[in-house]
């Protein structure tokens, strides 16, 4: 199994500001994934973060809004930029070192 540390666990932010979420893993993995879970809804993939290359974004998500860094094989960050109340969600990082996918505990973001 993999241990994923994600922080902050929650935050309340003013609209127009940006928040960077960090994800630290206890083992080296090639791909890390960032998901969004809006209130009462399922998980939606934002992007795939590969070490040494630009992240690959899913339809509806763009780099300017959700820039991602992947400086090494154990760490990634997701920034939620120029936040609005619609960005209030849980953001989760994930990795799949084997067939099983592991998730961080999530960052609960509230934008006011």
């Amino acid at each position, binding site marked *: 199994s993999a241990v*994923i540390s*994600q922080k902050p666990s929650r935050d309340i932010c003013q609209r127009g500001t940006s928040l960077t979420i960090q994800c630290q893993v206890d083992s080296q*993995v*090639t*791909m*890390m*994934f960032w998901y969004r879970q*809006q*209130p*009462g*809804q*399922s*998980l*939606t*993939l934002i992007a*795939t973060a590969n070490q040494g290359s630009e992240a690959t974004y899913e339809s509806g998500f763009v780099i300017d809004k959700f820039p991602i860094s992947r400086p090494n094989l154990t760490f990634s960050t997701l920034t939620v930029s120029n936040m609005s*109340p619609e960005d*209030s969600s849980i953001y*989760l990082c*994930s*990795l*799949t*070192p084997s*067939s*099983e*996918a*592991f*998730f*961080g*505990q*999530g960052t*609960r973001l509230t934008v006011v």
Partner: protein
Amino acid sequence: GESVGLHLPTLSVQEGDNSIINCAYSNSASDYFIWYKQESGKGPQFIIDIRSNMDKRQGQRVTVLLNKTVKHLSLQIAATQPGDSAVYFCAENRGGFTGGGNKLTFGTGTQLKVEL
């Protein structure tokens, strides 16, 4: 302001009864399926998985059934306990497992409530 969002389907069962949670998927090319449990304030936790070359897989108190003909997946929990109360999601891997990562598509989710 009031938050507007989808309300998850809810399944209420008595403690000790069996629970069956259903999921429909749309992509016939999906070859790998996973059930996750998500408790309040936590990330999804792996329960059990199944590959498309199987139609049934059993774990400890849980069984996953896959019907590829109708693109249907179910999770059966035997002797449901209060600790099973959570939201359950099915997820499918549409593209095959590529070295280093599964890109998953999640279903809507079902809220399981266990009544004492």
